[in-house]
């Protein structure tokens, strides 16, 4: 579902991404670990078409992102680190707008269901997003992603800044999506969260994917040790 063939991105002499090969199947959660500047966000940007690769190919559901950026976007959803949305629109209005941009028209009840399923409290659905906490905004973001019914989900540091409860709720949501057959690529610094939800974990350093492990192979502590040794 999410495939990278020798994907590279250079800025002059600097290799932000170097020969990345990746294949994430439907139902799989792949967590990319790495320090700042390791190439995690660049990888996601290449799949989203926000960065043009210098070499190699990024594919979503068999569609080359560079060749058909709009076609590939039909199959993906994205959740950035900070989901600001439109502060003067309610959670429901934001979800409605972004769904319509993706070509989906839902009834008010359906929109409410997406938001509730994402964990947004029912009494805040019609409040302006400007009054939401970061966790609540993330939930609207995940509702936007699920409402798109995408087969591939890209998340860039989605749990950063979330409180433990919100973070845990978020993990459960991702697991549910994966069970529904969504392929998930998540960039994160949170080793313990990665261990908790990932099917596989990849560790990046200086633009290269230097190690890939099944999350079941190690405990969280062992994974942390491997991570520290690798980076």
């Amino acid at each position, binding site marked *: 579902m999410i495939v990278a063939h020798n994907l590279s991105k250079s800025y002059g002499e600097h290799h932000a991404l170097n020969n990345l090969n990746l294949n994430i199947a439907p139902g799989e959660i792949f967590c990319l670990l790495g320090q700042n500047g390791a190439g995690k966000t660049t990888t996601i940007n290449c799949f989203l078409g926000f960065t043009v690769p210098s070499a190699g190919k990024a594919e979503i559901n068999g569609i080359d992102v560079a060749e058909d950026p709009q076609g590939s976007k039909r199959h993906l959803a994205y959740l950035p680190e900070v989901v600001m949305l439109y502060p003067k*629109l309610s959670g429901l209005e934001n979800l409605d707008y972004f769904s319509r941009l993706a070509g989906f028209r839902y009834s008010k009840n359906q929109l409410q269901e997406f938001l509730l399923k994402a964990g947004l409290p029912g009494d805040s659905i019609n409040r302006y997003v400007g009054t939401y906490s970061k966790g609540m905004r993330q939930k609207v973001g995940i509702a936007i992603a699920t409402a798109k019914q995408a087969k591939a989900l890209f998340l860039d540091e989605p749990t950063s800044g979330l409180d433990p409860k919100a973070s845990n709720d978020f993990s459960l949501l991702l697991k549910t999506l994966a069970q529904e057959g969504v392929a998930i690529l998540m960039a994160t610094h949170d080793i313990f969260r990665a261990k908790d939800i990932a099917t596989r974990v990849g560790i990046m350093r200086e633009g290269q994917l230097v190690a890939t492990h099944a999350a079941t192979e190690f405990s969280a502590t062992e994974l942390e040790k491997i991570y520290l040794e690798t980076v």
Partner: protein
Amino acid sequence: MLTQIIQNEWRIAWRERQLSVLWLIIGGLLLFATFSGWENFQRIHHEREEAAQLMRQKWENQGDQNPHSSAHYGTYVYKPVSILHFLDPGIDKFAGVSLRLEGHVQHGLAFAAASEQSSLSRFGDLHTGLILQVLVPLLLIFVAFNSFQRERSSGALRLMFAQGIAPRSLLWGKIIAVWSMALALLLLVLLLSGVLALSQPQLSQGTDVWLRLLGMTSLYALYYFLISAMAVQLAAAIRQPALSLLSLLSIWVLSTVILPKVVAASAEQQKPLLGVMQFNEQMHEERDKGLNGHDPEDERSKRFERKILAKYGVDSLSKLPINYDGLLMQEDEYYGNAVWDKHFGLLNRDLRQQAQYVAWSSFINPFQALRNLSLSLANSDLYQHLHFQKAAEMYRRTLIRTLNEKMAYGGSKTGDWDWKVPEAWFSELRDFDYQAPAIARSLQQRSLELVAIAAWALLLILLLWMPWWKAERLL
């Protein structure tokens, strides 16, 4: 997808307090300016109508009069004010409104309202045209800038692209949204203007007024498209907010304030005009000494006398069956007309060349095209002013020729200055009835500006189709 973006932009513009307050202020200003412009138009219209009627009354009630005395007594004509004056008053205030018509001499237009005001009030009269030309585009610039920067800084733009919106669709959506907000203001002015014009059916009859109003609306709509397209594309292309806003504001200041002044000054340098005193002196001198100084007045008179005596086969003026004074005065009039034609022809040529020079600048500054076309459609520009001046002069010539011919052939004899014509005869002379140029003529004179503004629209649409509008460059 476009509809969603447009609806969303409207919703946000309405909910963001600063923006909605700005819209309300500009809308309120437009209503105020249109109403006060209409009041002003009505006052000026009635003043001029009354003055013209008074002059006609005086003319018709001048009593039994010698035609030559009547020619010197003369009359005044008043430049009728175009009904769309209330939207764009143009040069009327600066160019004078009344013209004295008399024998032997051609006067210039007098009583420019601005000459009685301070330089400050001359600069910045608040009228609908000024708000539509200067303030509305500034508002559109802010809306376009705010719209892009808000989404760029909040990350909503990334989410929008991830949802599958194409960069070009986003640009079009925003352009149409910003443009439609301007169109709403324009519609407000159009409706109000239509209602006001309909309240004076005697002034708004015929299709010309309505075509002009429609033309003005279309012109401003096109200009707002240019501003929206330019502002959105610049806001999209320049990622740093401060630089983006600075660039947009610089373009606004340059196009609305600096360039028009520079171009006007440059046009004056290219084709300097004579001062009024110098111009009148030259006319006076050529009338005395003959065109180019080759045919002095006394020689012309002697030659004309010989010609008339020969024509009637007599050897002295006293034997003529007609009044030679009338013929001589008309002959002098013909000469004066030729002198006027030469000098006003040259002045007219220079003014038109200046206007053409300014018109060419529309290709680098669409604001110039808008301003010139707006004045032209309101029938308050230089061309209309020159048209009135020419029409008044033609009327003066006919009037004075009729008076001189009455003097010559009406039954009096040479030297009979006490001879009088009954008052009723003066009433039969046709009154001045000025017909302003039709819209087709106005637009024909502004064809350069029309081409320029259309070229700008095409250019901005072409820019939208350029391959550089990619998500990676907009984020």
